[in-house]
């Protein structure tokens, strides 16, 4: 039974007025190789900073080898935990060997200078990471990948028992990436060094990790073996795009890729989608539809509405009405012409009131004319019309063949299925 190298117990952490980590709990056993994955901004870096006691948790405890990090002396902490950050920079002209020597800083007492042992450890770390030829070069002059290897050498010189790497291999060329991963794997297998790797290369991580931690929006969504975490539907939901997980027939490794036909569909599809939106509910729809290659129209929107601004910026044809006014007859007839020309009508999760209820009627008209109409679900929660007119209308439409949608990735695959069946 091995000791836990790193334990998070119900940890919340963040910055002034912004909580980033929300009740995260997990444990990493000594000698494990763990990949931490999740979309940009989900709190991975904050998690590392909290683990290294750079950020104090707002609640909960973080333990390194059974000791609360808040009570560890800095030098002791550095002998347990090394962090390779996303990027390090030095404005001053330190040479590579001077930079790597920084890794020994907490072992050198306040009076002393580096001992022969310190020099040996620095030397060994530089050889290990293939930077010893760069020793007299200025750190700042090196390429991004070389700098990353120097940073790794510096952290190795700390001789920690657990190393956390924050997307540190992202800048490496393929040769050095393999090499650095090999180094990490050797340290892990031979020296039982615990590794926590923040990674965006899911396929690469799948091949080398014992376990995955998947984060989204500050919470730990799932922890488990690569096969348990790398589930296409789970990843697609977290990363908000269509992903595919396959097993490599030769190596047995899992491979995560964007669905191939999603990528190939860069050309125009020749399909037009009319979006009924408002109040910012349309922006993400516009963005995704345009990326997928649809022709997009929208309306009726009030001028100055944030969706109207977005449509103008994205060059989307839109029917506009004066700000804060009910939709007039000119706009209605213009919008129904536009809807007639469209292949699909999508309703976003816009709140309905008496002013824009007419949009829903337009959609019903389109449905009766045989168009495919897709409604964002849960209209009841955003129906502000008298007598819940919008809810009644939407129920009528659903029974007449309109389709409910929940998430945008789901919507996109529904559209895709539909127009492959009806070219």
């Amino acid at each position, binding site marked *: 039974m091995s000791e836990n190298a790193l334990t998070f117990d119900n940890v919340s952490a963040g910055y*002034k007025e912004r909580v980033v980590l929300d009740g995260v709990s997990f444990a990493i056993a000594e000698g494990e190789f763990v990949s931490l994955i999740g979309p940009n901004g989900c709190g991975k870096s904050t998690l590392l*900073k909290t683990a290294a006691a750079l950020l104090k948790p707002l609640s909960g405890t973080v333990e390194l080898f059974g000791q609360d990090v808040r009570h560890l002396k*800095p030098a002791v902490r550095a002998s347990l935990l090394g962090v390779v*950050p996303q990027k390090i920079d*030095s404005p*001053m002209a330190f040479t590579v060997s001077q930079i790597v020597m*920084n*890794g020994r800083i907490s072992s050198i007492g306040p009076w002393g200078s580096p001992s022969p042992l310190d020099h040996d450890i620095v030397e060994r770390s530089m050889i290990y990471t293939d930077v010893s030829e760069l020793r007299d070069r200025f750190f700042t002059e090196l390429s991004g990948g070389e700098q990353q290897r120097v940073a790794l050498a510096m952290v190795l010189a*700390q001789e920690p028992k657990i190393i956390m790497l924050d997307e540190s291999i992202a800048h490496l060329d393929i040769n050095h990436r393999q090499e650095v991963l090999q180094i990490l794997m050797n340290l892990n297998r*031979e020296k039982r060094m615990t590794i926590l790797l923040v990674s965006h290369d899911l396929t690469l991580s799948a091949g080398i990790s014992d376990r995955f931690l998947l984060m989204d929006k500050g919470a730990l969504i799932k922890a488990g073996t690569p096969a348990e975490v790398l589930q296409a539907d789970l990843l697609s939901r977290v990363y908000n795009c269509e992903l595919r997980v396959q097993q490599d027939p030769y190596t047995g490794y899992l491979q995560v890729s964007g669905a191939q036909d999603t990528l190939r569909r860069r050309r125009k599809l020749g399909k037009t989608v009319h979006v009924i939106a408002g109040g910012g509910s349309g922006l993400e729809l516009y963005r995704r539809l345009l990326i997928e290659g649809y022709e997009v129209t929208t309306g009726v929107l009030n001028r100055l509405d944030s969706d109207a601004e977005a449509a103008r910026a994205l060059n989307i044809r839109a029917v506009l009405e004066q700000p804060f006014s009910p939709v007039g007859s000119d706009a209605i007839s213009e919008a129904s012409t536009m809807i007639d020309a469209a292949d699909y009508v999508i309703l976003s999760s816009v709140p309905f009131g008496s002013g824009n209820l007419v949009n829903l009627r337009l959609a019903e008209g389109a449905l009766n004319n045989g168009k495919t109409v897709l409604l964002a679900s849960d209209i009841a929660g955003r129906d502000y019309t008298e007598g819940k007119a919008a809810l009644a209308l939407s129920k009528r439409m659903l029974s007449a063949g309109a389709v409910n949608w929940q998430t945008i990735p789901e919507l996109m695959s529904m559209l895709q299925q539909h127009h492959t069946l009806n070219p």
Partner: protein
Amino acid sequence: MLSSRGLPPLQAWKTEAMKQSSTSRVCRDNSFTSNQPQKARLRIVLFLLAIPLLLALSLLFGPSGIGLPDMNSPAGGAILSLRYSRLLMGMMTGAALSASGVVFQALLRNPLAEPYVLGVSGGAGLGATISILAGSSVILSLSLPVVAFVSAVLTLMVVYGIARQGSSGQPSVYSLILSGVIVSSICSSIIMFMVSTASVEGLHNVIWWMLGSLQPVSTGQQLLSLGLIVSALFGIWLLSPRLNALALGREMAHYQGVHADLIIVSGLLCATLLAATAVSLSGMIGFVGLIVPHVMRALFGPDNRRLVPLSALGGGTFLVLCDAVARTIMAPVEIPVGVVTALAGGPFFLIILQHRMKQAWIA
């Protein structure tokens, strides 16, 4: 044992290392010869040898003429002891200003940082002006460094407080420098106001002091200042390995087991003490705290363990030489030493920096 953990045993790599380093020495091209440790060491030895010579040279200059004064006459002895005192004043002030510049630049990781830019000198100057205009001269000379230090620390706290507004946690270097410049100019405006409304007898003292000169102060103040400067320099020298770690930023230093905030605060306090003592000794002498650290870094590299003592020595010697010029060149009129530091030192340092800037900072 340390080597049992982390990496394979050293022996396995040693031969490899020798092979590697010998090949790298061959293929290393000439543009990088400057960061070879051997050359740097030679440069340091030459520099250390030159300092006593330059200091001795400065004793030959004075308003009474160039060359040693006639030691047989009582006036000759007095002149020489006066020149000695000025040498000591110059060494103290120059060393304090330069070392303080080194620390500010290292802590803020910015080539613009120096006591003047952060408002520290301005605050010290304001405190000193108030106490010169208000106080009596005997108690004054001893309290001056203390008042200057206290007001410099207060100013630094104001600058830090302003810069911290709106930032989450640590203020950025840019907001520190910006608020430092603003607070500094507010301080000098208040000084100007006080000077323009001061009574005639106080005025002479303040003006003379503000222009900056190495006129010897009372022995008591000299001893007190010497004590303060030496202890602050010693403190900085103790901090210097950790200042190197801070060159990679507060976050990285923290990861490496440096108590970053403690180092930053003690570094700032030592540097402020140095700058304030220098200001209380010799008034507002600009330029030294900014440029000497740059030149020393360009000549000897950015390693603070060397840079702190070398800058202290270099800055002191530089100021002593400038003072020798200032008191001689238009004798019997003495020109403010700050004029010489900028006019003579400026072009000289610009030439050095132009050739060797890369060795100091990489923009």
